[in-house]
């Protein structure tokens, strides 16, 4: 995302090892760059950590972001890193509050790309209403990184109405997906060396916390389980829950929301969209009684217009995910083994 905010003036147009050395260059980069852009009352303590009062049940989550390319159709690694941890906290039933932000920069990263990422971080944090309160910057040599890695860790306060635990899932519960699957993964794939294709698909990275809070406000503990199906796709999330609960998870291919272009790309590359990474969507498992209302509220939210009930929890085939195919047949949807490799031949 391009912004009109001017780049601070630096003596360097790329990041060098010196910017990670802990000396003056590091100090300047942080002072004139990071703190200026992301500054808030807690971050500005310039200590090795932030302090603030907290009480209640908290959620704590971490993720490292290693996406390549780090600026991709629909976004960049910065907003991804904010949204990712915000969403992980939301999936715990928490209201995200504080983030840490840690960069691993490969020397040679252009200053302007770095600032583009920083500005996206600022905007994403603003939108998600979280504060970035502590951070870290490391620079590694050329060839020892991939331009930019980001770790965010986050602290949230568990929503008073939330009671998210896989143990609470019961047969009859409905499985809901909040939006089109595989969008993000295919957007990234479209710019991968050797597999490129033209598409208007862009990543759907977005913060889901406000959407989740709204749902928890109304449906409370009728929401049994929440998860954002990032790496490994929705198949992996459902398999993990199936394994943990020893219940059956039954879904219907006809109900899976997916964009036409995404389907086309999957056909072309021989990929199964069930295993493709997602960003801006989540899976909810909710009490059957509230499913329709839950879906209605979700459909009225900009993050859930394509939401659908895709299946339900069952006593059949315990520990397994089974999908009814478009033509009415059934198949087991297993764990993906490793990375999904394009199946060409």
């Amino acid at each position, binding site marked *: 995302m391009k912004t009109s905010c001017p780049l601070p003036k630096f003596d360097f147009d790329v990041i060098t090892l010196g910017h990670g050395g802990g000396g003056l260059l590091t100090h300047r980069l942080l002072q004139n760059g990071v703190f200026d852009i992301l500054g808030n009352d807690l971050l500005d303590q310039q200590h090795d950590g932030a302090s603030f009062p907290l009480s209640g049940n908290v959620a704590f989550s971490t993720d490292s972001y290693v996406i390549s390319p780090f600026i991709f159709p629909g976004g960049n690694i910065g907003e991804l890193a904010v949204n990712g941890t915000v969403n992980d906290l939301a999936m715990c039933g928490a209201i995200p509050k504080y983030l840490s932000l840690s960069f691993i920069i490969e020397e040679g990263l252009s200053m302007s790309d770095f600032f583009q990422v920083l500005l996206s971080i600022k905007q994403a944090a603003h939108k998600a209403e979280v504060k970035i309160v502590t951070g870290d910057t490391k620079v590694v040599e050329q060839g020892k990184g991939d331009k930019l890695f980001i770790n965010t860790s986050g602290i949230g306060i568990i929503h008073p109405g939330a009671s998210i635990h896989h143990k609470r899932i019961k047969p009859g519960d409905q499985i809901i997906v909040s939006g089109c699957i595989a969008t993000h993964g295919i957007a990234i794939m*479209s710019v991968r060396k050797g597999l490129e*294709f*033209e*598409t*208007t*698909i862009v990543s759907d990275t977005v913060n889901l916390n406000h959407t989740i809070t709204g749902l928890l406000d109304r449906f409370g503990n009728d929401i049994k389980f929440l998860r954002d199906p990032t790496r490994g796709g929705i198949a992996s999330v459902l398999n993990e829950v199936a394994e943990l609960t020893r219940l059956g998870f039954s879904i219907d291919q006809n109900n899976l929301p997916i964009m*036409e*272009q995404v*389907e*086309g*790309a999957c*056909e*072309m590359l*021989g990929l199964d969209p069930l295993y493709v990474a997602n960003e801006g969507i989540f899976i909810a498992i909710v009490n059957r009684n509230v499913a329709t209302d839950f879906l209605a509220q979700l459909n009225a939210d900009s993050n859930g217009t394509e939401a659908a009930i895709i299946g339900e929890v069952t006593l059949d085939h315990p520990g397994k995910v089974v999908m009814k195919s478009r*033509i*009415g*047949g*059934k198949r087991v949807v297993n764990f993906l083994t490793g990375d999904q490799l394009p*199946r*060409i*031949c």
Partner: protein
Amino acid sequence: MCLAIPGKIISIAGQYDGVFRIGKVAFYGIMKEVNLCMVPEAVIGDYVLVHVGVAISIVDEQEALLTLEYLEKMDEAKELKFPVT
């Protein structure tokens, strides 16, 4: 094997790297450069079967319709449906 899917030719460039005929082929709205030198008679708007970046045949629209009408040409299959679970 041999994953091949039908796509529609959107544009045709004369040459592939100065050597071969190439074109843009759309699959559900995504587009890929495809080598068209094995289907010299293909024109914009044709559907071609594409395998590993090469168009291997033009989809015959007439034959496609016949396949879909195959059952109707069999007298016996008019009324009943097989009950699928």
